[in-house]
């Protein structure tokens, strides 16, 4: 196991290196002069020169790359154009919001997805089965940015049950420990804060959860169906065990491996979906931050943000691989 983990961690190095090369060259996709694009046409020649020097664009390519890499290795991504803050600081401030949103979305997706999948499998071809499979098909075809808006219309504007957007009401304060509002408010027994944070996260988390939920429901159903056909299930039923016990204890346990794989894969994909969800709900995470950098043509910040998100993405995938090998030792062979 240790050697497997080591080998898997080592494969991360060339991948992250590759990502950095790709991210570095992205600025050369800009048609024309990036400095002029960033500062606008009416910027003074002096300001342009200064920015070019700061971005290193006045240097030959290999020196540019060398500088980019040496800064990257020191954990320095430069400064954001709009705020003149360090990009790493800005991202670190917003990271917990995205993590909290993704975790909450995954909690939704796993709970409802697995529940729907198990019921569908145990009652194959029932009305519930058909409708939940139809829902899951619709779920993967749904533009989540649209779903978010529709939920807002229904639950905030018409019913007034949930706040329209944001992460916390302006008059509510939660002392930061982990940076995750829901957990911090529980740790400090701040019930008002917990309620407020919960009310704010429900809609964005549900919106973000639809696609993984649909995929988890489908895989749970097919994996359960396969297990339910096996002899030991029939034996268990023949012994007169209550169906619920057979389904949840005997069958689900053995159906879990493909389900866990899919859950792991979805985690990384949530990072992408978070960009759209955060935009709609004004959720102050890295997705929204990155998009604002795009709008401001702050190429430096876009590069930095992309580098970080992509690195997180491949790291999550690596952890999933390792967990998977731990659960299912056969995988290590291949």
């Amino acid at each position, binding site marked *: 196991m240790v050697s497997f983990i080591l080998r898997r961690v080592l494969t991360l190095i*060339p*991948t992250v290196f*590759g*990502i950095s090369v*790709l991210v570095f060259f*992205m*600025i050369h*996709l*800009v*048609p024309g002069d990036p400095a002029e694009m960033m500062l606008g046409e009416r910027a003074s020649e002096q300001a342009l020169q200064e920015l070019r020097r700061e971005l290193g664009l006045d240097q030959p390519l290999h020196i540019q790359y060398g500088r980019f890499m040496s800064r990257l290795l020191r954990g320095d991504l430069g400064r954001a154009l709009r705020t003149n803050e360090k990009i790493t600081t800005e991202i670190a401030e917003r990271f917990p919001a995205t993590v909290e949103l993704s975790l909450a979305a995954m909690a939704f997706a796993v709970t409802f997805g697995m529940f729907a999948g198990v019921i569908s499998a145990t009652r194959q071809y029932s009305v519930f089965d058909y409708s939940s499979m139809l829902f899951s*098909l*619709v779920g*993967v*075809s*749904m*533009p989540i*940015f*649209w*779903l978010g*808006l*529709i939920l*807002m*219309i229904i639950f905030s*504007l018409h019913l007034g049950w949930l706040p329209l957007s944001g992460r916390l009401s302006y008059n509510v304060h939660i002392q930061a420990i982990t940076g995750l509002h829901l957990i911090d408010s529980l740790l400090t027994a701040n019930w008002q804060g917990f309620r407020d944070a919960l009310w704010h996260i429900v809609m964005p988390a549900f919106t973000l959860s639809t696609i993984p939920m649909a995929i988890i429901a489908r895989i749970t159903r*097919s994996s359960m*169906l396969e297990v339910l056909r096996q002899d030991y299930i029939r034996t268990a039923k023949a012994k007169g065990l209550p169906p619920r016990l057979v389904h949840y204890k005997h069958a689900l346990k053995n159906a879990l491996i493909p389900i866990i794989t899919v859950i792991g894969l979805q985690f*990384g*994909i949530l*990072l*992408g*979906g978070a*960009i*759209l969800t955060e*935009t*709609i709900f004004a959720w102050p995470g890295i997705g929204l931050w*990155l*998009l604002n950098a*795009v*709008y401001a043509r702050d*190429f430096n910040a*876009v590069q930095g943000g*992309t580098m970080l*998100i*992509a690195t997180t*993405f*491949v790291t999550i995938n690596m952890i999933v691989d390792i967990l998977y090998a731990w659960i299912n030792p056969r995988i290590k062979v291949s």
Partner: protein
Amino acid sequence: MAGEKPHSPRAEAFRRLRRNKTAVAGLAIIVLFLAMALFAPSLAPHDPLEQSLYAKLKPPVWQRGGSWTHVLGTDDFGRDLLSRLIYGARISMVVGVVSVSIALFFGTLAGSTAGFYGGLLDNAVMRLMDLLLAFPSILLAIVIVAFLGPSLQNAMIAIGVVSIPRYARLVRGSVLEEYAKDYVQAARALGASDARLIFVHILPNCLAPLIVQTTLGFASAILEAAALSFLGLGAQPPTPEWGAMLANGRALILRAWWAVTFPGLMILFSVLGFNLLGDGLRDALDPRLRE
């Protein structure tokens, strides 16, 4: 089934496809959208770009204040929503064709050469593909457009580039599988060139999974393009693109639910159509993959 003629594989697949209710439903939806796209000028009651000061934010016909002149209502510029939705089908179909073609062309090229020649070339190409997969696809598309500049054309390029690896991996796998077979070696012994081997002998036999992937690719291309346009990085106003219309409707969320609801439904149904057909094709073309 006595007395029936034996079917060719193609006829057999077609028969399975026709029996598959989801596939037929998907195909019906797609045909509907295609017709909408093709006959948009005769179907749309108004010019999709025509503004009217007197018809701003009219609700749909069944709501108070609605009229048959604007069946699904109007937006804040007084433009007819139904006409814009119909013309939107054109854009989404074009987006699907263009970005899938880009992905299909480069993906097939990369995957087949990598699989056919193997060795260093294979390694280099597939590592590059892995690298593209190291980004969440929507993030990569956003970033590419961010640097190229926001426009529908660049959005299509970005979406195409982002999905190249899916095709490359698929084709490479199939090519590797087919290459080992006797008929390929026989053709090679007869002196067929590499290009002939790849394009005439091997690729036609890898078509089934590629057709499925292409169909599903349309679905994700339409969805991703709508997302980019919604973020202001794809089609620009006043283009009647569904995602861009949603972005505009978002500002009207308090006053005009219809400007938000209908463009989203169009995206949902067109994507659903391709997903249904893709699922059905998978069952029909490749019975081994059936659940």
